[in-house]
């Protein structure tokens, strides 16, 4: 914009130039306005959520009932459910995503790699409510034998001790559904960094007499390490914020300590199922819990980007 205003004093400028410089200023103003609007939108999101949510941190004890009497007591079990479900999802999704990424980028011939990549992208397009539906109706009953197995042989681990849900609607099932949902984003980023490994480095490894796997370990993994980590973190951020799949699979109630039982619901799922009560008090509590969730996902995403940025700076500096 400053460049266009500088043009003005030059008297020898032909007349049409003055007209176009108006166009320039209008257009630049529009784009600037759009950017400022984004700023304003985000600011208003924060202001609103804080204004509406702050009272929720400190309501009368009975608002948090029946299980808790303070905000911390209310949100902590839900936070637990949120984090545990996301971690289960991550444990399942990350190795699978690395495997698929390798298949697409290095192992499969092109006529397999392209359709596989397309199918994984397809997975990303499926709406979360459909995943939830599939999780409840198809997956959950199939999980029951596995839960019985875990309960019979691994009950000495406290998280597998206790009542086994006979519907299969447990946090593990929710975690599996979440894993499938975050698989595409982790795969997409990981496969991108894998395929960006310099060809020359890979050939150098092979020319030293490395097997294919050794070539991966010498070049592909070190080169893509930060991308692999940040992909997992972005997947974690997604899993933490996902609402419907968890809300549909799990019944209400926060973290119970038993992975095989009912409950273990998450913050997002709790909001989705409680908002209907339409009490001003409870609403402020829900918004406050939403703020906690937002803070958590923000930190995770921020960490992911920081890792990527640091790696980029390192590569550029070398």
């Amino acid at each position, binding site marked *: 914009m400053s*460049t*266009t205003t500088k043009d003005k004093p030059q008297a020898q400028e032909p007349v049409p130039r003055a007209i*176009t410089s108006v*166009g*320039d200023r*209008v*257009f*630049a103003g529009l*784009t600037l*306005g*759009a*950017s400022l*609007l*984004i*700023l304003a*939108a*985000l600011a*208003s*999101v924060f202001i*609103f*959520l804080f204004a509406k949510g702050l009272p929720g941190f400190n309501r009368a004890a009975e608002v948090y009932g029946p299980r808790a009497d303070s905000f911390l007591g209310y949100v902590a079990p839900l936070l637990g459910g949120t984090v545990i479900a996301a971690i289960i999802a991550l444990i399942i999704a990350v190795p699978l995503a690395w*495997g*698929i990424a390798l*298949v697409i980028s290095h*192992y499969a011939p092109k006529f397999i790699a392209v359709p*596989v990549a397309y199918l*994984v*992208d*397809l997975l990303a*397009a499926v*709406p*979360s*409510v*459909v995943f939830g*539906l*599939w999780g409840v109706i*198809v997956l959950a009953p*199939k999980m029951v034998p596995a839960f019985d197995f875990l309960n019979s042989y691994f009950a000495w681990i406290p998280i597998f001790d206790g009542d086994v849900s006979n519907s299969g609607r447990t946090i593990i099932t929710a975690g599996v559904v979440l894993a*499938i949902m975050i*698989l595409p984003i982790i795969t997409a980023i990981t496969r991108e960094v894998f395929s960006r490994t310099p060809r020359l480095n890979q050939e150098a490894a092979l020319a030293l007499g490395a*097997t*294919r*796997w050794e070539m*991966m370990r010498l070049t592909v993994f070190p080169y893509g390490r930060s991308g692999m980590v940040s992909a997992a973190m972005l997947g974690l*951020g997604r899993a*933490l*914020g996902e*609402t*419907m799949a968890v*809300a*549909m699979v799990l019944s209400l109630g926060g973290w119970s300590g038993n992975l095989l039982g009912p409950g273990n619901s998450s913050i*997002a799922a709790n909001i*989705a199922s409680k*908002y209907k009560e*339409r009490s001003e008090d409870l609403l402020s509590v*829900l918004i406050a819990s*939403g703020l906690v*969730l937002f803070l958590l*996902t923000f930190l995770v995403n*921020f960490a992911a980007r920081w890792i990527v940025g640091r790696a980029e700076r390192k590569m550029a500096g070398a």
Partner: protein
Amino acid sequence: MSADLTKTPTETPDESSEETATGTSRGAIPITAAQLPRLAPLLVAVVGAAVAAFFWLILDWPPVGSLIVGGIVYLLALPAWSLAVEGRRRATDRMMTGLVWTSAVIAMVPLVSLIYTVISKGAGVVNSEFLTYSLFATQLDQPPGIYHAIMGTLIITLGAAIISIPIGVLAAIYLVEYGKRNRLARMVTFLVDVMTGIPSIVAGLFAFALFTLLFGAGFQGGIGGSVALSLLMIPIVVRATEEMLRLVPDDLREAAYALGTPKWRTITKVVLPTTIGGIITGVTLSIARVIGETAPLLLIAGLAAKTNTNPFDGAMTTLPVQIYSFNSRQETIDLAWGAALVLIVIVLALNLVARLIGKFYAPKTGN
């Protein structure tokens, strides 16, 4: 090195040379090595399948469990055989190859199961009545339908697109063409990052808080859903557009400036047209992304049985919310599958359109 030169080339190759790091054996390491037959993986796969069949048919295990046992047999037997014949390095390589392929196959299972279930359970439900009637019964024998939800989805998503696309595209133009990494541009970039991380339920809470404040506690309406979806859609549009604009080489801009074209005309007549395909692709994908959103709409757009085409007045059902609602009652679960099929078809169609546009507009010299 001189020590090596004294070795005679006829020195017998040392079997252990593979495990020693120094090149004492610079004489003649054989380049041939014991290898498994070419069909070894297939052979072991057959064994694995036989084991799976044994567990399934004879021991009466559940099919999934038997398959897992068979898979483990395959994953262990091939490297073990290779270790005995070819040595540690080849065995590791074979094992990792097996694991990598296995993970890809495993990941395909839920996708196939999901698509299969949605189609097999949904196809019987979807018919012309299902698509053209709403749930609001005006006659006693009226079949249930999701017309109201389809309309709601289209209207709310259209509203979100009307809000998001101009803001997103213009902001991206600012970031790439005007901002040039100044403080505001860096801040917007950062905030767009923050926005991509907003959990959808939080976007819904915001719209809920905003509209109940403005229009009273009981407010429900499609416009609230559009606003909530915009919060999720804008960052995707900005990102996609930004990426596309950065692909336009600076030579092109300079060539236009050199012809005396003002900056805004350069952008609208040169930069945008060269990259319009990519931008449309990105925008279409962002629509596909938000059209399946459920949580924010559950909060603010509500649920109604009647078709409502006015986003400013009254509850407006969308397909995802309708699916959620169908799912919560045992007798309507079949309808949920039908609605899920319709939703998936819409999303996939959008994805397909996005890809076709991308392909159609792709620079011809790209290959």
